[in-house]
């Protein structure tokens, strides 16, 4: 597979003894991790109880639910791209990210006010997702610009781990509130808003807006075509998009697991929690490993985990232990790819177009994930879940091989910034 940097591996095992007192994880990264943690508690509180709210409480029809679900799941691609370009052009990453966070926070209060009109609920939830689309790329740009190029993998790993704490806590908190106060969804919306507000306060008051070497001139032209001429950027984005296409969504994997387990009804929230726990524990170590032995190698390891996940679903009897193994590998896939891809993109794009590059990556992967879901769904409907699993194993393995060849072909250039 991909050549592993043996010296780097040795360096990882040895104690770090660099002369510089520069911390690997900048304060900005810790603080943005905190912001994301609070924000994810807020947003996961909503998304975990959303089906209950829409379907059971508001009693929307399946068609209305489908429209809202579709809007909620995607359709923020344009906003992502635009926010990245705007952030680069203004050189105001924190400002643009804050706008996204604030929009999402306002929507929590909006939910409180809309009542049962489903079109209003749909509009509010779309705006909420729009806020998420806006904030992601400039936030990742802030992380990358506050971090030494050698440590990007570690920085994104730490950020994603803190983010995932919120993913775990949010649903627990929401269900606890729902249990204590049946049908008082206002309690959930208000608490969700409170966490969003604390996240924004931390961002505005504590996070440093200065972004190192990037000049603070306003209204610079952002040379977007340069991104398309940037071969490492194109290669990494293509590989990431291909991976998202094959891996599809978490929900889809959980459906396959449920199908495989037959009538044994597994609570889906527990499956999410299993993946998130594995991701949480592995994100920082694998990010660090990526900085030492090479990010493409760790990324390919992540893809290999996904091949094993699907192979496990295909070949194993899914009992308690095998289920745990599959979820561990699923979390490892995220830990080895999500932050590592952001680090690879950051290493491959000049600071002037960093947010644009990260936004383009987000847009590409979310579009291919959507396309993959649709196609997997069609196959499921026509041929059944067994065929879906077989195709998924082969597609994931093929993607692994193609990625290994392409990343190797792109050579050292994509390793720019790695030790």
């Amino acid at each position, binding site marked *: 597979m991909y050549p592993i940097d043996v010296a780097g591996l040795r360096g990882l095992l040895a104690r770090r003894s660099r002369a510089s007192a520069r911390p690997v994880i*900048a304060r*900005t990264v810790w603080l943005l991790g905190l912001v994301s943690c609070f924000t994810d508690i807020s947003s996961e509180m909503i998304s975990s109880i959303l*089906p209950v709210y829409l*379907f*059971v409480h*508001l*009693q929307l*029809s*399946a*068609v*209305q*639910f489908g429209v809202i*679900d*579709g809007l909620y799941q995607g359709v923020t691609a344009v906003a992502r791209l635009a926010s990245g370009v705007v952030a680069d052009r203004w050189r105001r990453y924190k400002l643009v990210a804050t706008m996204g966070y604030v929009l999402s926070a306002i929507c929590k209060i909006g*939910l409180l*006010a*809309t*009542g*049962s009109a489903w079109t209003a609920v749909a509009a509010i939830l779309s705006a909420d997702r729009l806020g998420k689309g806006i904030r992601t790329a400039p936030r990742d740009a802030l992380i990358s610009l506050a971090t*030494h190029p050698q440590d990007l993998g570690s920085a994104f790993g730490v950020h994603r781990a803190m983010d995932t704490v919120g993913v775990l806590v949010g649903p627990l908190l929401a*269900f*606890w509130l*729902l*249990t*204590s106060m*049946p*049908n*008082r*969804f*206002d*309690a959930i919306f*208000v*608490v969700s808003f*409170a966490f969003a507000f*604390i996240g924004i*306060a931390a961002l505005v*008051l*504590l*996070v*440093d807006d*200065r972004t*190192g070497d990037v000049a603070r001139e306003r209204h610079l032209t952002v040379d977007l075509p340069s991104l398309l001429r940037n071969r490492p950027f194109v290669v990494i984005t293509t590989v990431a998009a291909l991976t998202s296409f094959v891996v599809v*969504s978490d*929900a*889809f994997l959980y459906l396959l697991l*449920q199908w495989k387990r037959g*009538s044994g*009804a*597994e*609570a*889906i*929230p*527990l499956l999410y929690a299993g993946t998130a726990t594995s991701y949480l524990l592995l994100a920082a170590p694998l990010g660090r490993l990526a900085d030492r032995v090479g990010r493409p190698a760790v990324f390919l390891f992540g893809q290999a985990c996904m091949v094993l996940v699907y192979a496990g679903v295909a070949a194993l009897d899914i009992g308690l232990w095998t289920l745990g193994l599959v979820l561990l590998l699923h979390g490892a896939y995220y830990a080895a790819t999500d932050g590592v891809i952001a680090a690879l993109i950051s290493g491959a794009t000049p600071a002037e177009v960093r947010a644009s590059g990260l936004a383009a990556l987000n847009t590409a992967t979310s579009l291919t994930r959507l396309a993959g*879901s*649709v196609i997997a*769904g*069609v196959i*499921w*409907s026509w041929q*059944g879940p067994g065929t879906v699993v077989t195709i998924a194993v082969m597609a994931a393995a093929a993607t692994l091989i193609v990625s290994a060849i392409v990343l190797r072909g792109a050579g050292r250039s994509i390793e720019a910034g790695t030790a």
Partner: protein
Amino acid sequence: MSDSRPSRARIATFVVFVSAVAVALAAYFYVALDPAPATSNHAPGIVDEKASRALVELKRGAYVAFREMAPGPTYGHLAFASLEPGAPRVFTSLPCHRVHFTDKVGICLAIATAPPGFRGFLLDDAMQVTQTIELPGMPSRTRLSRDGQFAAYTAFVAGDSYLASGLSTRTRIVRVPSGDDVADLESFAVVRNDKEIHSADFNFWGVTFTRDPNRIYATLGTGGRILLVEGDVAQRMFRVIAEDIECPSLSPGETHIAFKKRFGSGFDAWWQPAVVDLATMTVRQLPESKHIDDQIEWLDDGHILYAVGHSTSATVRRADIWTIAIDGSSSSSIFLADAESPAVVRR
């Protein structure tokens, strides 16, 4: 790579903001919310002594089990009342979303329980929870067979984003009181006009049992169409017997099926109660235009009960149980205010 420490003033401001949020939250919970009822979802006993005595009294005659919907500490809980108008209600401490009862056993589908998840509780004659069933999704419909040997439940699973609607159903039949799986309706063969049909988009919901618990009616949704199916549980087989009859409910005398009739389409669809005569398969529209969601229940062979929701917002949802004669001779009236999910237990 500048990474300066935030100033003390900024840190202090942040702390003030966080404290203010905490105080505001506490104030909101104090002012806006009723004190949370001190209940446990897993306590085997769900009735206190007084309620227990009242239940014994209630069970001498016919009564209705339902979900209490009046705001207050018992909101959302399983409750009982006799069929007399204005009868006092007997409350339990068990939060339920859907309930059904026979004279011996009961089932309650709950939305949020600890640990997080959707669960069904099987109850015995003494109102003890005898078995807990993990539901694969949001509670939707439930019915017990008349002899109390079997329970059927439908759960809605969200997240099947590969489906156009984003929702699919899981309907299972379990043995009572063990909770053991008897059948998953998805595993049934479906025959239409003597030909077996199948499609991966089959969704089943809304089971109603006949006197013979092996014979059931249910809804099959496929390709945007709604079919009424009649089936044999032991043989795992359904026969399609009609179209556009959704969420059937068989009358006590087994002569009629009350169902939800769809009006409009797409985003603007709504459902109204209707009745079909099984001898002639003629559908009678009832003089009732209110929208209904849950499966219909029979008060007696001439009258049906159904819940109608109102005042829905983020903070509350109210509902009343209405009744109407199936001969269409009179308009509907409220049978039980501030209640939903009725289950009539006859003597």
